[in-house]
Each structure stands twice: as C-alpha cells, then as structure tokens.
C-alpha cells in the first residue's frame, strides 16, 4: 500500500507548524484547539499560579517511596545483567556462555541470535567500549551479575579511533558508514560574509578552547521492569518520555503500539540521557517473554557511566572581529566534536548565531563518529559547550579593546531572532545584565578584590594571603523555550468534588505534578489540594511529549489550563441548573461556585455530589506557537572566584543568576532547577571530565569517585533570580522553559572569573589545579 500523500495544506483544525526541540526545528501537524483562553498577562490576578506551593510529591520523596522503577517489585521478579565489551573495536570470534548458564540461579542467557534485529542488541561487531554483547537473567541481581562475569568473550581487535583526528585518518569506525564525518561532511552555516568582514576588521581576536566530555550521571541508573500478560506488555521505565518509550518498544519488538503500556511514576534524574528506550528496556522485555515472569534490568554504575550517553568533548577555534568602539562585525567558529558511534544532537555552533547581534557569522563543525559510546542530549546540548568558546573569545575581545566585559556584552545584545530574522516574543536580557551586575557588585569589583586581599593578608599575618587571587566573570544565555504541540490534558471531576488532571507527561524531579495542579487549580477556581495530577502512565493519560528541551511547562500548562476552563464551564452550567440561575451569574473560587454579588454559594463537592455519576470533564490541547516570533529564555550569570596560585585550586565563592523566563508558575521549584543547573555548570567548569586513554581507547573514570561531580563542599553562595513578568504572546499561560538555560552561562562565567583573577586565560575545561598551574607557567595544556 502506498503511503498517504504528505499533507502540506491541511485544512481546518489540523495544520502544519514548526516546533523547536533542543535547537532543532521540526515540522508537525497539529490540531488547533477548539477554543483559546484569554492570555494571562503580566498583571493577571492569580492565586495558585506564581505561588510558592510545596512540591506535592515531597512527602513521598522524603520517605523513600515515590515509586521509582528501581524499586518496582513484581511477583516472582527476575533480574538481568548486561555483558559489555571491554575494548573499543573488534569482532567477536567466540562467546563462551557455558559457565554462566550452569551457575545456580541463572534462568537464561541471550545473545544476538535470540533477539529481534530491530533492537540492534548484541552486534558481534564491537564498535565501542561498553557495548552490550550478551545478557544474563537470574533469580537475584547478585547471581545475574556473577554470571555475567563468567561469560568468556574472544575478540579479534581492530584499529579504532577515539579522537576526531584519528577518525579522519582511519576508515569507517563502524559498518554502514562511508566515512566518519557525521552527515558526510563538515556542517557549515553562514549568514552575511565572514571572510569579507574579517578582511576589513578594525580589531580581531582568535582563541582555541576545549571542553570536556561530560557524563549525565543521574543517581537512578537507566532501568526497566517488564512484565507480559498474554501478548500485552507493561514496562516500568525510568524515562523522560513514556510515550516515546512505548513507540520504541513496539517498533523494536514488532508488536502493536496498543499492546504496550509504559509507566513512570517517579524517576531519579535524566538530564537528557533518558529520552528513549535502551538496551536495558529490550533486554528486560525479551527475558520477560522468554521466561514468562517479570524481569528487571537495572544498568549498573559502570554501565551507566560507560554507555548511556554523554556530552561530547569539543575543540573550538573562535575568531571575533569588531569595530574599535566594540560593535561585533564577524564571528567565525571552527569546531571538532567526536560524538561517539551515534546520537548526533545540536553542536556548539548554534549559540554563535544567536547570542550576540552580528551580521556576519560562520560556524564550521566537523562532527566525527568515533569508537566511544553514543552521545545523548545533555542539558542544553551544544549551547553549554558553545557558550564556553564564545564567551572566552568575547572576554579576550574586551581586553583587546580595553572595554569592560559587561559593557561589551550590553553593546551587542541580540534584540531579534537573527537565525530566522524575526522578533522575539520577549527578551529582557538587558535587565538581566543590570540586575545581575547590581547583585554581584560588578562595578565595585576592583574595590572588593582589594578588600578581600587585605583581609586575607591580615588573617594570614603579613605577606601570606597574596597567593589568593579573586576574580569576577560574566556570561549570558539564550535558549529556545517555547514548547509546543501536540500535548493534551483531560480533567475529570470526582463525585467528592476533587479533580483529576491527566496528562501523559512525567516528572524528572522538576515538579511536573505540582505545576499541573497549580495551573489546573487556578483555572478551575479550585483549592490546590482539591486537584490531583495523574501522570506517568500511557494507559491512563493522553499524549504529552518528552520532558526535554525545557518544554514541559510551556507545552503542558496551556493544555491543562484549557482543559480546566472547559471543565469549569460544564461545572458552572451544572451549578446554574441546581441554583436556577444563569451560568453567567456564577464564578468559582477556592473550590466553591459563588453567585456574584450575593452570599449564595455551593462547594464543588455539593455540585458533584448532587450530580451523582454525571461526570464533569474537560479537554485541553496545546495550540501552535506564533510563527512570526522566536520564543527564548535569556539570562546572565556572574561568578566570583578565588584562585590559589600556589595550589591551582579554584574556589567559586558566589554565582548570581538572573533570567527572563516569562511567568514563573512556582518560584520555589524554579529556583531549585536554577540552582541545579548552576551546580551542574560548576561541575562542568571545574571537575567533570570523562578521561580516555587515546592509545588504548578506553574510558578511565567510569565511577562516581573518579568522575568528579560537585558535592556539598563545592557549593558557592547562589543568588538565583527570575525577572517578574509574563510572556502572553508565547502562549496563554505566559510561560517559557527554565531547565536548560540555567546551565549555559555558568561555566563560561567561572572561566572568565578565573582569567580575571589570574590575568592569564585557562582555555581548557575543566579548570583543574594542574591546568591552572600550567597556565600560570605559560603552558596551559
């Protein structure tokens, strides 16, 4: 049967629109909502939205029982363990499973011949260290792990590449590749004429910057529990997208989509690495089918750090050109990114086209496939690493021009969406800079440095203390945060007057349930505890997209509000009948239907109680974004650091962050995410780096001890702030995303502060003591 014609000019309620995800643009058919509520403007009088409501699932999380996948215990559940490759490239010549099979308690072992090809499991061609080779299932996790260690693998080793340079010299690093370049060639994006602008530039600077490969390292590893009931499969999965996992599983196993149910009631962090089903999902489902019992496959920590995604490292060479007065005239980037065996996402180039106003911009990204595990989106993929190069180069330009780094940034604010030549729905980056500068004391920083130095000397008694240098840095961010369709919400009133808010979304730890409840309670005129969010189950809630790209609130909140307005309309009609008045005479407040200008009222429970099993419901959907304006969150962060020039240790003393993200539904939850992004950015700046032995091709630090993440002891004073306001042009709730913007400026702000403290740049992250000392001795690498 031929495919149906591609519907370009779909008519009526179903139209084609553009949606941005993680810096990519996608065309989608969307349904126009049946009605569009009046936007909540900046001055809307709201009760629940904007309030510091307590996280609804806080009590469950503080008692250890919110329902993580790793804690699912089904009757007679068995446990799987994955056997992984221990070298970067080769061909398996012998797989000896005998010892594993005979271990007491082992139930099953599977290899390539036992799995559907669409799962892509257990390829005998090894293309990276950590690649799954086989899997074992046993009655306990300990036995499964022990049996996995008994599998003997014989491999013919093959030449490999783990750096871009190696990849460009070597033949294809895996089958079905013509060469190792992602997309077959470097990705070049240019606006204006960079060569011409560079040729007539008044001032230019060039810098080379390196950023490390960073690992997501969520505390809950990737995991799935699978259980079959006849030909129906239920999968509990720690995921950022229950509907996407459902799709992945059905396709990989070749079973109908409607036979798969995916559940995620709580998950222990994702940060971009949990957007798809993975080998663990398919392994659990296949064992569960073969054995006729529930099977859990929890990736162990080494596997988690080896093979569940990463932010690839980057090498960036940046040339900036400007007028003597500090107007940017050209931005030129050349970048090299070893992405692993797959998983391409946005590279560092995008932010170079967006953050600063500049007529001539060119980015040349050479992304290469190499024999390391596939990359995955990691909180602001591309932007987090691109901003490091761009901001370091901008600081160099400021120094060259003799202009204050903040003043140079203020001169070059992009007030329009330059990539698409259109305005933004809102962008108050200038206010973010000003407010941030005020909070950190930017303009008094030289005096503060002197005072700190005097205090340190006094404390240490005289000459001591001179080795502690203080510095200040600033960096900014832009990130598309409009969210978009498709995204649905259903609301139903229960007989006791409470309302269920149902959406096929999930909570990564961001507070999705709380946000949904706040928006629904607001639009219903309900109390917050009269509303219950039902998420994380494809069987009980309509479609919502992945929680990625800082999209959840911007996508979901308008659908929730519309569903609530729809349900409220029915509730008022029902109440009007009971009170023998017109619905127009009624309003709702705090769980009561009130008659205007009288003291007559009914509680929601009285209305629904009288209705009996007549159910009040509401339907909501997310309409398309405005196509003639870009929707972004912007912000500025400032860092104050102290560098010990004797030990090379960098201590971040303070981060000030000010962002413009439209309306903030819950300031407490927003601040939590902002602090979290800043702390991950601090880790990226100072500690985090997956080290590879380029000679052996092996990752060297795949545990949480050797891969250094920030701990309690590393945390500076964080002053995180969102500008008041709303963005009613973006959507009728006035919201934009916040999760990824938080991480983008932190590392470059810290790098700028370190350079300010030392008077010497350190242009390779992380800023470890040996790199700092090396830079001080004129040898930064």
């Amino acid at each position, binding site marked *: 049967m031929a495919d149906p014609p591609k519907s370009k000019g779909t008519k009526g309620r179903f139209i084609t629109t553009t949606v941005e995800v993680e810096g990519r643009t996608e065309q989608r058919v969307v349904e126009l909502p049946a009605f569009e509520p009046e936007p909540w403007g900046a001055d809307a009088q709201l009760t629940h939205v904007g309030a510091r409501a307590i996280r609804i699932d806080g009590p469950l999380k*503080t008692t*250890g029982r919110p329902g993580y996948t790793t804690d699912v215990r089904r009757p007679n559940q068995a446990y799987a363990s994955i056997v992984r490759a221990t070298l970067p490239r080769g061909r398996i010549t012998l797989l000896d499973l005998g010892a594993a099979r005979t271990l007491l308690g082992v139930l099953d072992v599977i290899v390539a011949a036992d799995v559907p090809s669409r799962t892509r499991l257990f390829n005998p061609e090894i293309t990276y260290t950590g690649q799954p080779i086989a899997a074992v299932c046993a009655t306990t996790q300990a036995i499964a792990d022990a049996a996995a260690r008994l599998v003997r693998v014989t491999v013919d080793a093959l030449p490999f590449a783990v750096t871009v340079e190696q990849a460009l010299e070597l033949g294809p690093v895996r089958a079905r590749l013509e060469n190792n370049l992602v997309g077959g060639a470097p990705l070049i994006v240019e606006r204006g004429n960079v060569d011409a602008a560079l040729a007539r530039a008044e001032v230019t600077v060039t810098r080379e910057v390196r950023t490390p490969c960073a690992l997501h390292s969520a505390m809950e590893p990737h995991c799935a529990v699978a259980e079959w009931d006849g030909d129906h499969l239920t999968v509990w999965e720690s995921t950022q997208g229950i509907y996407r996992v459902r799709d992945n599983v059905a396709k990989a196993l070749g079973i109908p989509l409607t036979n798969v149910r995916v559940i995620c009631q709580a998950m222990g962090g994702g940060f971009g690495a949990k957007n798809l089903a993975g080998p663990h999902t398919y392994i659990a489902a296949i064992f569960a089918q073969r054995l006729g019992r529930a099977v859990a496959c929890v990736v162990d*920590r080494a596997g988690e750090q080896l093979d569940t995604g990463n932010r690839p490292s980057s090498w960036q060479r940046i040339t900036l050109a400007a007028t003597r007065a500090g107007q940017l005239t050209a931005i030129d980037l050349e970048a090299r990114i070893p992405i692993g065996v797959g998983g391409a996402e946005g590279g560092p180039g995008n932010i170079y086209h967006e953050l600063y106003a500049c007529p001539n911009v060119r980015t040349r990204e050479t992304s290469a496939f190499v024999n390391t595990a596939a990359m995955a989106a990691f909180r602001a993929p591309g932007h987090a690493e691109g901003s490091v190069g761009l901001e370091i180069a901008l600081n160099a330009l400021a120094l060259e021009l003799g202009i204050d780094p903040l003043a140079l940034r203020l001169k070059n604010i992009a007030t329009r969406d330059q990539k698409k030549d259109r305005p933004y729905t809102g962008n108050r980056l200038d206010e973010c800079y000003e407010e941030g500068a005020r909070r950190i004391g930017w303009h008094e920083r030289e005096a503060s440095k002197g005072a700190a130095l005097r205090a340190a000397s006094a404390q240490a008694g005289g000459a001591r203390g001179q080795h502690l240098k203080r510095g200040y840095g600033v960096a900014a961010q832009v990130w598309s945060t409009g969210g978009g369709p498709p995204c649905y919400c259903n609301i139903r009133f229960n007989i006791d007057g409470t309302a269920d808010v149902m959406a096929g979304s999930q909570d990564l*730890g961001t507070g999705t349930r709380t946000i949904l409840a706040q928006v629904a309670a607001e639009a219903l005129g309900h109390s917050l505890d009269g509303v219950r969010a039902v998420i994380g189950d494809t069987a009980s809630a309509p479609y919502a997209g992945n929680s990625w790209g800082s999209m959840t609130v911007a996508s979901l909140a308008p659908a929730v509000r519309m569903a609530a307005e729809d349900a409220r309309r029915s509730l008022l009609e029902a109440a009007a009948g009971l009170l023998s008045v017109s619905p127009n005479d009624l309003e709702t407040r705090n769980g009561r239907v009130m008659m205007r200008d009288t003291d007559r009222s009914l509680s929601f429970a009285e209305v629904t109680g009288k209705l009996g099993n007549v159910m009040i419901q509401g339907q909501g959907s997310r309409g398309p974004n405005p196509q003639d304006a870009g929707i972004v969150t912007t912000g500025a962060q400032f860092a104050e650091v102290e560098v010990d020039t004797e030990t090379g240790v960098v201590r971040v003393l303070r981060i000030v962050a000010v962002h413009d993200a439209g309306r903030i539904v819950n300031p407490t939850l927003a*601040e*939590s995410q902002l602090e*979290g992004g800043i702390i991950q950015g601090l880790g990226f700046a100072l500690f985090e780096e997956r080290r590879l032995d380029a000679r052996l091709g092996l990752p060297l630090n795949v545990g949480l001890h050797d891969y250094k993440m920030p701990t*309690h*002891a590393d945390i500076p004073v964080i002053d995180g702030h969102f500008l008041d306001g709303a963005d009613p042009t973006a959507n009728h709730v006035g919201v934009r995303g916040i999760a990824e913007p938080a991480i983008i400026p932190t590392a470059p702000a810290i790098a700028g502060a370190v350079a300010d403290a030392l008077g010497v740049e350190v242009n390779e992250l992380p800023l470890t003591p040996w790199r700092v000392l090396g830079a001080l001795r004129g040898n930064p690498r």
Partner: protein
Amino acid sequence: MNLSINSQLVAADIEGSTTLLELLRETLGLTGTKRACDIGECGACTVLVDGRPVYACLTLAHACAGQAVRTIEGLGAPGAPDALQDAFVAEDAAQCGFCTPGQLMAATALLAENADPSDADVVAALSGNLCRCGTYPKIVRAVRRAAATLRTQTHG
C-alpha cells in the same frame, strides 16, 4: 542471624556475602534505601547502624548481627513526618528525590550529635552524599531548619 531494623527484631537466613543493602532491598523489600552505585561512591544507600551512618552497599549484613539498623522507613511516614523530613519538604530539598533517603539518614546522624550545626558542619557531615540535581543549598537549609525546630521542641 538476628538484628533490629527500625526497632523490629529480624531473623534472616542469608549468605555471608549478602550486603546490608541487599538484605534491606531484596530480602526485606525495604526499597526506601537506594542503590545507585553499589560500591560506596555516592551515599544513596546511607543507613544508621547503632546510630552511626554507614554505606549499606559496603556493609556486610552479618556484620550488623545484634545491632540496631535504622533506615528511611524508620523515620516518619508521609502523613507523620519527622522534623527533618518536614524541613526537607518545606525547603524543597528533594528534586528527583533519589539521593534524599541517604541525605536524610546522614542528617539524622548529624543532628543526634550536634543540635546546632553550622552550615560548615552540615556540609562536612553530608559531603559523602552526592546529589546530581544540585539540591545541595536547600538540603543545608533544611537540615538547619530541622535543627532549629528540634531545639525549640526540646526547650519549649
């Protein structure tokens, strides 16, 4: 072997190699204590043994014979939280919540020893507990808030 878990006497027939974490999560179904690294690198499995915080993944169950083990299930319940749990909720000190039981147990041990910890005391006591969501500032605030609440209760 016999031991006390959350004030209940437990008799367990387990192998010598069984860790305290396996005993809790697999044998007894007490899944509140989390397994995140299983090699003593993250602190998510922190429990108290005779009041002392230990990594349950590095502790052999038999080594706890005759001792009193306290886990997150031994603190308050959702409807009746203890002061620390209450403060964690009030300060939003749990994002994804996966490290939270370990943080709470380490904090419980701290408050038993030090009724009025400074920020630095909290940081020192909890630095073996990683949090990838970056909830650290709010955890410190929550522990100090709970300490203040408990001091008021004691003296009030």
